[in-house]
């Protein structure tokens, strides 16, 4: 953003939202008409209109337990997407750059955690368990801090006031460095996340619901709670503290922030370290659902549609965007996926994001940019 740019908040219900509501209303009327048409026999079960517009809703009503389970799975995925998106938002706010390296930071942080734990227990002979896991956690946080300082010193400081595209390319370079460095240190073999050693719950609880059952994984519950707490703390930190205000100043203009005595270097270290903490938590949660390998990097791409929906500059946007994408793609995959042969959720997230873009190009909570000429 240049100095000639002003940032304003939009009214709660702008023209585009009104249009959105009207569109939603029209859609609801359309669905109601289809239901009536089905009831009266105008549309049969084999018609594509029935399969697309009626059958999924009939399934939702027939099997409410599966609907709730799908929404829950979407919610958990959404919270985790939010966490990833948060890493992007923090760095974007501080440096105006899309941090391409956020995905590999997730992998690097998780590998550091597991790698240090293995080193402590296998090489140094420390008893396996919670204490070793805590020490490993502290070690992984230390590595993320060192990484933040190194990024600030080596990558960002020489690039102050350079065009954004230069900064983006620097993070692309950082990504490939971290991939190579991570593979050199930890190897390419997948590792098992130390879930139980960290005290994270395993197992599940079955809840009876509407004649069916809902399976709540304790790990998912913990992930949702930890992510929610993390987001709340970060939200508070960046909204109400001196550093948070400094961060927002930096986001508006590097030059202006420097002129009022804000240390750009300090802010960047704080923000990259925070993004590192977020990456570590994301790595633990996703790693516990599968394994810790370089494949986790792909998960970070999920943040893109989340950022499109929520805006690149808003922490609440990352949360709401994550939940919309998470729940939206799971519902879409579950109820409409079979019509298209399944496996649609990877691109469905972008379709959902594009639909939001049509009504709010700056994202749900993004700042509307007014360029004065």
């Amino acid at each position, binding site marked *: 953003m240049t100095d000639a740019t002003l940032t304003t908040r939009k009214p709660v219900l702008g023209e585009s939202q009104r249009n959105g509501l009207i569109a939603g209303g029209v859609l609801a009327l359309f669905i109601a008409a289809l239901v009536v048409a089905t009831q009266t026999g105008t549309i049969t079960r084999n018609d594509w209109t029935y399969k697309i517009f009626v059958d999924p809703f009939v399934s939702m009503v027939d099997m409410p337990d*599966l609907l709730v389970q799908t929404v829950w799975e979407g919610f958990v995925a959404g919270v985790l997407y939010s966490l990833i998106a948060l890493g992007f938002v923090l760095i974007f706010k501080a440096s105006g750059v899309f941090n391409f390296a956020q995905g590999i930071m997730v992998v690097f942080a998780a590998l550091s955690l597991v790698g240090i734990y293995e080193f402590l227990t296998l090489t140094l002979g420390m008893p396996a368990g919670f204490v070793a896991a805590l020490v490993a956690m502290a070690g992984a946080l230390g590595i993320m801090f060192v990484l933040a300082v190194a990024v600030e010193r080596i990558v960002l400081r020489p690039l102050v006031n350079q065009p954004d595209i230069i900064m983006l390319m620097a993070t692309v370079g950082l990504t490939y460095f971290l991939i190579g460095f991570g593979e050199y240190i930890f190897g390419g073999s997948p590792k098992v996340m130390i879930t139980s050693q960290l005290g994270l719950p395993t197992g599940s609880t079955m809840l009876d619901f509407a004649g069916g059952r809902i399976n709540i994984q304790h790990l998912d519950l913990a992930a949702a709670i930890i992510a929610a707490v993390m987001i709340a703390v970060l939200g508070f930190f960046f909204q109400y503290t001196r550093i948070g205000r400094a961060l927002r100043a930096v986001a508006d203009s590097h030059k202006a922030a420097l002129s009022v005595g804000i240390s750009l270097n300090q802010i960047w270290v704080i923000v990259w370290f925070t993004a590192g903490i977020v990456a570590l938590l994301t790595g633990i949660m996703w790693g516990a659902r599968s394994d810790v390998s370089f494949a986790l990097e792909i998960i970070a791409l999920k943040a893109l549609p989340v950022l499109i929906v929520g805006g690149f500059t808003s922490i609440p946007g990352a949360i709401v965007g994550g939940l919309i994408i998470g729940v939206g793609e799971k519902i879409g995959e579950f109820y409409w996926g079979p019509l298209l042969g399944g*496996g649609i959720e990877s691109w469905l997230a972008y379709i959902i994001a594009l639909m939001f873009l049509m009504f709010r190009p700056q994202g749900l909570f993004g700042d509307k940019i007014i360029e004065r000429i």
Partner: protein
Amino acid sequence: MKTTRLALGLGLGLVAGFAAVSPVGAQESINFVHNTYRTGAFSGSGIPVADGVRDYFTMLNNRDGGIGGVRINFEECETQYDTRRSVECWEQAKSKNSVVYVPWSTGAALATIPRAHIDKMPIFSMAYGLSAAAVGGTFPWVFNPPLTYWDGASVWIQYIAQREGGLDKLRGKTIGLILLDAPFGREPIPVLEALAREHGFTLKTYPIPPAEMQNQSSTWLAIRRDRTDWVLVQGWGAMNPTAVREAGRTGFPRDKVIGIWWAGGDDDARPAGPDARGYLALSWHQVGTNFPVIQDILRHVVDRGQSNSAREKIGENLYNRGVYQGMLIAEAIRNAQRLTGKRVVTGEDVRRGFEVLNISAARWTELGAPDFAAPVALTCADHNGHHAAFVIQWDGTKWNRASDWIRPDRARIRPMLEEAARAYATSNAGWPARSETCDQPS
């Protein structure tokens, strides 16, 4: 004086230069450039396989001085399971006169099959790649023993029928196939669809896009919604441990989840901990280190610090599969040496060596692997063999054999493969008719 010294220097330089490039005294070697993926999203599956095959050839070099007295110059080409990189590796293998190309990816196999007969480099895609390449008359340069994905589909259904009490008990059942949404994942679908029609079960397919390998919750919800009785896993890389974990998370009986042979890695089951107990996969060779060939690897490679693998991973399922692949390729090179009388063979020679590949039970023993795998034999017409497989089961710490040998329904599969091969040749204009001569096995 100056001129004399210059002339002397030039003369010495020339002599030294000639000595360096002269074949006299240079060690003979056979080049083998092998695709691997030790990095990237599929490294979990790629590393143990690469370690197994690499260690086997290192062992042959250390123990026997190579094959037939010629050292094997084994090189790896990193692909990250990326087809574009794999094709670059084809070019590298070609430029280094590799005697065989091992794609380790169905996508890469499909991309390079049209080049094999032009560049005279055989493709060895062991139990993966284009299933129709089993038809040697159409694909003289491609070999995919010991069985194809189509055979695997047949074995899957026969095993399920055994557990259900007969093929007639399959009627009304729902069998789900979760598959990596890539050429590899889609390979078994034609046979499963045909078997579903014949035996009256419902086939549900659940494709997993590569970007969603570790994000399968909606797939397993769909499995629950469809009341799927059995789940087949055509997966690779990080998709497999996630599938096993999700089966555990959703409470789907693990002993009704059967992976293809590539979903049977120790690292596919291990991350799920106790949740993985009971998980099944297909295989065609044994696990463990209790074979002379593996002991030789430990002695001649691992003990000398020349292996990339951790000692405790030697003998794991995918490691032994790499060794198995190494043994088949080494045998083809031996055959080529025998057929041609040459010590240093070429890709064309090794192609002939594959066509007469015949490893009997006695030969497995000679190779240091008694009862390691079933006999495998190829012919000019049949580049696959459609050999039997069995089911292995994860007990929480290791794989154990859980069924007898199950022979695929060759009578059903072979005509389908021949039809698919014909269709391939027709749809690829100018596909050459086989002109390669056929050697008789001795």
